[in-house]
């Protein structure tokens, strides 16, 4: 079925169709529609899921931890300040290896308060042990939410689905949906009941661990994160076989013979493709790649995508304080010997429009080493 819905509605629908048992959430713009829509499903009896109304995001994630430890398929959503308030519990979820799925609708962080798209929130928790999958539109947000449950439950790692505030969350788009049956065949009817709290088979979760074991438990997480890349790839492939919609870890557009490449994340990719077409019509060899699988960082795939370019502009939607921004740093660490330039655009929802992208390509062509795009002096 094809529905005209926003990115937020697409995520809520996907979560409902994935047969989640528990949603614990607190509303925050621009994520609100997700949990609002989900609470509507609950009120209308369209799902048997339990909706837990909590007093903060810290509690939302804590309730998710409890539900997931008991074996519930668990979902929540947040943005910006909400993610900041969850920060502590994000590490608890990943450390306890709980397959929680969360949509984070990317929004700038205060201060100054701003509700618009910016990647500073999810980037601030990039090392919290969560898988992070970035989306470019509502269709992908729907698809990725479904795949996220399969990936999380197979790897026992929590998964964050990232979509840009307003640009994706509030923009109506035709979204091709799957039937409940197709989805449940794909991800399984319910969570596998391994490693959960069970009165018949008592276990202790989250006990104190001293220096003699902490490193080993972190090594397990590190290894699980590294190995999750294979699971993510396989899940993307199986989903592609089911729907025809194929998602690579790193997606590229006209990069094969490109002299200058823009490497980005999120909704900017769509605009960049248009700019690439325009510039190609003028005879300029440019291309664009975007990182879908940010954690674990798809470094080899990024390298493969951009290795033949004369120069690559790595564009972050994060204000860097005292160092380079995160996507650039990850790329730099994976792409030794490639000519990389760091760019920052689109802070606090400033439009990343065709001119913004064009400006990045112009600077790459001219070799201008200037990080900030579209900021007044």
């Amino acid at each position, binding site marked *: 079925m094809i529905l005209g819905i926003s990115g937020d509605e697409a995520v809520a629908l996907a979560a409902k169709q994935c047969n989640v048992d528990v949603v614990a959430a607190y509303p925050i713009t621009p994520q609100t529609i997700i949990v609002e829509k989900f609470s509507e499903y609950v009120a209308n009896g369209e799902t048997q899921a339990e909706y837990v109304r909590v007093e903060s995001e810290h509690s939302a994630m804590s309730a998710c931890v409890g539900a997931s430890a008991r074996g519930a398929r668990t979902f929540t959503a947040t943005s910006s300040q909400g993610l900041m308030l969850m920060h502590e519990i994000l590490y608890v979820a990943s450390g306890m290896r709980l397959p929680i799925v969360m949509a984070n609708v990317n929004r700038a962080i205060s201060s100054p308060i701003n509700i618009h798209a910016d990647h500073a929130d999810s980037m601030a928790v990039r090392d919290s042990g969560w898988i992070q999958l970035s989306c470019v539109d509502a269709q992908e947000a729907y698809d990725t939410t479904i795949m996220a449950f399969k990936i999380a439950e197979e790897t026992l790692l929590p998964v964050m689905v990232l979509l840009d505030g307003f640009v994706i969350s509030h923009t109506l788009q035709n979204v091709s949906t799957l039937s409940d049956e197709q989805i449940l065949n794909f991800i399984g009817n319910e969570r596998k009941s391994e490693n959960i709290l069970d009165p018949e088979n008592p276990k202790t979760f989250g*006990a104190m661990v001293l220096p003699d074991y902490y490193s080993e438990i972190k090594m*397990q997480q590190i290894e699980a994160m590294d190995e999750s890349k294979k699971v993510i790839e396989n899940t993307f492939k199986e989903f592609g076989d089911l729907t025809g919609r194929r998602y690579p870890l790193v997606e590229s557009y006209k990069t094969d013979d490109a002299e200058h490449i823009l490497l980005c994340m999120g909704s900017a990719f769509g605009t960049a493709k248009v700019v690439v077409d325009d510039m190609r019509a003028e005879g300029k060899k440019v291309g664009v790649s975007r990182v879908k699988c940010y954690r674990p960082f798809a470094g080899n795939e990024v390298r493969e995508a951009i290795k033949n370019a004369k120069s690559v502009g790595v564009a972050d939607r994060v204000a860097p304080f005292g160092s380079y921004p995160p996507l650039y740093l990850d790329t730099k660490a994976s792409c030794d010997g490639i000519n990389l330039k760091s760019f920052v655009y689109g802070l606090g929802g400033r439009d990343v429009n065709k001119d913004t992208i064009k400006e990045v390509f112009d600077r790459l062509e001219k070799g201008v080493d200037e990080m900030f795009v579209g900021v007044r002096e």
Partner: protein
Amino acid sequence: MNTKKKGYKEMPAGGVTYETSLDYETGTWRSEKPVVNDEKCTRCLECYIYCPDASIKYEDDKIIIDYSHCKGCGICAKECPQDAIDMVEEEK
């Protein structure tokens, strides 16, 4: 008692506990150990009640300290109404 600690490939995921605290020795943390003077001790069992680590047992009409788990906090010595427990520095 487990002497060899498991490696990360052998342990359950997520820090789920796989051995009991009985198998996990905390006695090595101690800098001073409680020593009971049986002559002064009246077997009132105040020490048994106060021990936060359940490291004091009463067997065969004697106070027995479980030195594998006693962390040497000294609460038993402090609370003993007969001053029958001395804290003695551990040898290095």
